[in-house]
């Protein structure tokens, strides 16, 4: 009993933190910094409590007599939880200055962040479709509200409106799919679905297949796959920086939690059906995302476009899973980690800079950045290199695994297209490096910000490099193999 409580404590703490912040925000005596500290405190507590579970390889259903098999704790969900909490902590800490410089933030903001982290964590743990849907709605509704947080700004409101209409509309497909699966199986628990698929013929699984396809619509929408991408660039652009960073670093990843759990395990016997559909969508996503990313002047929009391309890479691996690749599932996990590290870093630097000015950041604004802030520029360059998949960064290895899995499953052309889009992405990422390094500036050099934000961004940069070249030879520090081990273990715990 007590040990099970301990296991769900990380989730409980985030939601308690959210309640606490919500109540606290009625009190006018607290400053924004206090709220931030409280939120970070709760999240860190959750993170620290979660960390030891990474070495726990068992699959545990929490309170089976009450919850049934709805709530599962395994290595997979733990890894996702860690990314969510870490992403939220980094978002809050790096943006401390941003909050100070804008007057529209208040205590509820932090409550909403915690609510959405709770939703995402529940999503990662849920072993049942309705729970997953409600968890997804918690996360989504909080993120909708966060995206429109800058109320006096029209763009922010519009971003929220667009996101909300499209998000709710595609969300309806998730529950429709769940209803279909319930109709066929009589249950929405994932294990039952798997048992049903194994035990029944083709004709009976039709409803499950349609349901799975509808659920996929929602997943594809939330990760921004073409043709469900029309919101991504606008919402990333319109939302305040910390929210964009939060979305890019956590919410994008969250959907893969349920997607992998569902398609890797339960739909495993039938998921070859989707691979052709997925291949088409992957091709569209890779090309469309690249096109969106190339054509942008604004950095936020460029990163949004490129995040579509990164979804495309992960979709390659998902369709490889359907075609029987063994490496694909760990490849996605590793890619998620690598994308997490690099995008948190890149968005972190952007919002760090944005906190000091009121205008949006374009490529032009980065002219001469290397001279003004050599360290930040170097870190930004590292993150750009990692996102473009340049060797000696973690992004390269992520792409390496993805493409290997594609070749393994015989999708040579898709792997080729992936490499081609990686080549295109070199253009728009190197454009930023070129802007930073190739132009002189008249402004004087600023000192390295030795505050928490700066140190954290630096830490991310070191991790990005270490994840690309780290060897296992240095004792007690996991190298690249350690990262892969974590990814593999997480996927293993699913089966």
């Amino acid at each position, binding site marked *: 009993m007590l040990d099970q409580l301990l296991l769900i404590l990380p989730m409980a703490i985030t939601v308690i933190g959210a309640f606490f912040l919500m109540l606290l925000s009625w009190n006018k005596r607290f400053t924004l910094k206090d709220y931030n500290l409280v939120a970070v405190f709760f999240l860190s507590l959750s993170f620290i409590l979660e960390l030891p579970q990474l070495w726990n390889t068992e699959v545990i259903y929490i309170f089976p007599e009450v919850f049934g098999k709805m709530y599962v704790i395994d290595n997979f969900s733990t890894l996702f939880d860690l990314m969510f909490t870490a992403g939220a902590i980094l978002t809050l800490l790096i943006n401390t200055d941003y909050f100070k410089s804008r007057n529209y933030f208040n205590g509820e903001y932090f409550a909403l962040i915690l609510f959405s982290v709770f939703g995402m964590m529940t999503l990662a743990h849920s072993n049942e479709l309705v729970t997953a849907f409600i968890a997804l709605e918690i996360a989504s509704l909080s993120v909708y509200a966060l995206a429109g947080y800058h109320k006096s700004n*029209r763009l922010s409101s519009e971003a929220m409106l667009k996101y909300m*209409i499209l998000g709710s509309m595609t969300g309806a497909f998730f529950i429709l799919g769940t209803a279909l699966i319930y109709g066929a199986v009589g249950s929405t628990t994932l294990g039952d679905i798997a048992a049903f698929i194994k035990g029944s013929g083709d004709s009976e699984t039709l409803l499950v297949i349609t349901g799975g396809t509808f659920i996929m619509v929602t997943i594809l929408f939330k990760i921004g796959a073409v043709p469900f991408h029309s919101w991504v660039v606008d919402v990333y652009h319109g939302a305040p920086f910390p929210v964009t960073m939060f979305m890019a670093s956590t919410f994008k990843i969250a959907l893969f939690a349920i997607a992998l759990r569902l398609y890797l395990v339960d739909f495993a016997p039938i998921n070859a059906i989707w691979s052709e559909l997925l291949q088409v969508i992957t091709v569209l996503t890779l090309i469309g995302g690249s096109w969106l990313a190339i054509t942008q002047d604004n950095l936020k929009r460029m990163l949004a476009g490129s995040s579509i391309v990164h979804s495309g890479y992960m979709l390659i691996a998902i369709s490889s899973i359907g075609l029987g690749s063994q490496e694909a599932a760990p490849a996605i996990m590793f890619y998620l980690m690598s994308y997490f590290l690099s995008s948190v870093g890149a968005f972190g630097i952007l919002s760090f800079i944005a906190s000091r000015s009121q205008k*949006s950041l374009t490529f032009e604004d980065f002219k001469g950045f290397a001279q003004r802030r050599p360290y930040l520029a170097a870190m930004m360059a590292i993150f750009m290199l990692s996102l473009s998949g340049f060797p000696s960064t973690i992004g390269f290895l992520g792409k390496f695994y993805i493409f290997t899995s594609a070749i393994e499953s015989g999708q040579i052309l898709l792997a080729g297209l992936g490499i081609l889009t990686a080549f295109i992405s070199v253009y728009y990422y190197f454009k930023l490096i070129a802007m930073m390094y190739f132009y002189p500036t008249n402004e004087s050099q600023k000192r390295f910000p030795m505050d928490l934000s700066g140190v954290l961004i630096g830490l991310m940069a070191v991790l990005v490099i270490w994840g690309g070249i780290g060897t296992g030879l240095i004792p007690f520090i996991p190298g690249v193999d350690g990262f892969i081990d974590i990814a593999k273990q997480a996927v293993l715990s699913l089966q």
Partner: protein
Amino acid sequence: MTPEPFFALATLLFSMGIIGIISRRNLFVVYMSIELMLSSVNLILALFSRLHGDMHGSVIALLMIAVIAAEAALFLAIIVLLYRQRRTLDSDVFSKLSQRDTL
């Protein structure tokens, strides 16, 4: 009585919801169309529940009603906000973002 007419009805409702979202620009209508989609799923759930003879589908439908309420709250809030900003309910007016505006 057979379940087919019920299913046809639910399908029609869901489709009408999509049509409403695609073709109308009035924000209230868009919002209600989404509610309609979710409600039609509720009908399907209740129907399956009846066909299976267990209460699971009904309970899911009940939970969905709560989800609909939650979405409605946020939707109404954002419509009020936008109406206060622009004095219009036209969703096409809110497409400034695509015109590469600076923040």
